[in-house]
């Protein structure tokens, strides 16, 4: 089993207490959670479970909802793609934010939360479809994105690392040309990033990724552990007198 989804080692005790008690429904805790989101943006930490609690408070008290905080939470959840976090956050947003695009009523008015959410959904789609080159060009292509990710410190850096992680899980070798596009880096910067941060080997045209647990080729073995308890009935039957 992996790590529990509500676990976050960096989470302050005060937040933990609110999350585990009924105070998580108390509208007065909204500001505490908002500050916590701000600190996550600044300190490059991430706590999905707490952020979902804030979105839930917004869901119950729409008048308290702050668009900036909502988009910051969504941007933060992009930094952990391809996890389900972005979708889980969307699930708690008011339904009209996504619906507008499917109607023929035209694009949502600029500056609205619907517009922001739909823009971020585009990024999410590109990331999850592994279209990293398009991700970077889209990000650079619209000023709105610059505004949306501005609060999240080191967004581009985090995304590069995240992409590198996904790549390292799936590949052993990749063409330099391709990886340059995926990471939106070239020349000396690319070399530094790949060699020093990732610790990969680069030659003329290829990048070699050392073997790790995820990217080695191996067959899957299906194993099922059956406890003796589960057979207790059968064993018992064997001793029963035939009726």
């Amino acid at each position: 089993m992996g790590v529990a989804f509500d676990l976050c080692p960096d989470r302050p005790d005060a937040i933990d207490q609110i999350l585990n008690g009924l105070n998580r429904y108390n509208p007065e805790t909204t500001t505490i959670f908002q500050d916590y989101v701000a600190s996550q943006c600044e300190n490059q930490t991430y706590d999905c479970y707490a952020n979902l609690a804030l979105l839930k408070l917004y869901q119950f008290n729409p008048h308290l909802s702050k668009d900036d905080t909502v988009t910051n939470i969504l941007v933060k959840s992009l930094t952990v793609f391809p996890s389900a976090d972005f979708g889980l956050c969307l699930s708690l947003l008011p339904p009209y934010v996504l619906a507008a695009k499917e109607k023929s009523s035209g694009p949502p008015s600029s500056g609205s939360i619907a517009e922001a959410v739909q823009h971020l959904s585009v990024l999410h789609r590109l990331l999850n479809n592994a279209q990293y080159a398009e991700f970077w060009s889209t990000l650079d292509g619209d000023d709105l994105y610059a505004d949306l990710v501005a609060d999240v410190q080191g967004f581009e850096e985090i995304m590069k690392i995240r992409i590198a992680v996904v790549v390292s899980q799936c590949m052993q070798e990749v063409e330099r040309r391709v990886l340059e596009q995926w990471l939106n880096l070239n020349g000396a910067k690319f070399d530094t990033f790949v060699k020093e941060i990732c610790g990969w080997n680069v030659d003329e045209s290829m990048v070699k990724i050392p073997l790790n647990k995820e990217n080695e080729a191996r067959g899957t073995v299906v194993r099922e552990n059956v406890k003796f308890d589960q057979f207790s009935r059968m064993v018992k039957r064997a001793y029963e007198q035939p009726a």
Partner: protein
Amino acid sequence: MSVRQAPTYQQGAPERTIDDDSDVEEEALANDYREQVGYSNGDEYDLDRSASLGGGLQDLQAQLVNAATPLEYGATLDVKIHSYESYCNLFDYILNSDGPVDIEMPSYFWAWEAIDEFIYQFNSFCSYRQRLAYQQSTTSANEEEVAILRENPSTWECYSVLNVLYSLIQRSQITEQLAARKRDEDPTPFAGKYGSRSLYQMLGYFSIIGLLRVHCLLGDFSLALKTLDDIELNKKAMFARVMAANFTTYYYVGFSYMMMHRYADALRAFSHILVYVSRTKNFQKGAQYDSISKKNDQMYALVAICVAFYPTRLDDTIHTALREKYGEQLTRMQRGGPEALPIFEELFRSACPKFINPTAPDFDNPQINVDPTEHQVAIFMEEVKNNMYSPTVRSYLKLYTTMDLTKLAGFLEVDADTLRSWLLVTNSDQDKSDIVKVDFLRVM
């Protein structure tokens, strides 16, 4: 005004049994009557009602039976609102009397049925209100009902529903009891003066399952699962003794896992209960079985979706039943590509719960009151689209251990860059796919 006649009238009513339909009708009539008398004289009416609760034993029993009885099909708005008030009064009496109340539960299943019906009515009321608010602009919606709903924004309010469930959990100290049971200790010392009574214990326990359900309906899947932390999901669990509760629990657990993209866990939950049902269905004839057979089909639809995402070996019984019910759909979903999208959507729609919004709709802006189910469908379909080509790619990965990227791209009729992306998607989430990490990734 003859306010006092209302409770008298009810007390005079013959004692009810659950299965007696005519009595249910009579009860509806009685409710209707009480309402008409009550509306002209609100405050006094309320006082009198709560007094009547503590009154005759017979009356109380009737209230209990009522709480576990579904409303009539096509019940009017007034009946629905009134039913909410009855629940409030009943739970208020149970929770806030002087010390634990001494009531005999009408049946062993009562606690489950009451909580189940309570949430069901909440769910359908919210959906109805939302739909009405949305339709306002397009059709000539029932103006009268809109007006009533506008005036009563706090009827079936989400906060109060959650409040009831949380209060029942706290009063019964069920969490402490379950924790003790988990440690293999005797739960009795942790039960307190409320929790030691089976009424509170059962209500508390089923309220936890109620919370799972409400959170899921609100789209908070992680919190839904978190709610069950204290409950052990196994055959010895308390809810396993009430078939409908057992069934409901696994449905919502599985669904929540699915929405969190944890398909393996979702499949485990669905398989567990579906195997159980298929093995016991011969003993479960009758009404209880009929009511779960619809949910049964829904769960098979969800199993089909999960298997399409996460190819895995299923229990033979489930596999056979799945082929019977959704064989064609499953084949098409497993083939992937854009043609599979409508199938995913159709199955999801038929199998998902009726999602709700926690707040009252905005009657002044009808168009923004989008059905929350549409919202969840959109989010789900986004995930489906992301994995649309994985089955196609996977089918080739099974065939080859080494091949040139461009060659595979040629087979799939896409360019090399697109294929690289597909491969990354197919391989990137280990939890989703147990696919063999093939050697040919090296030629990239």
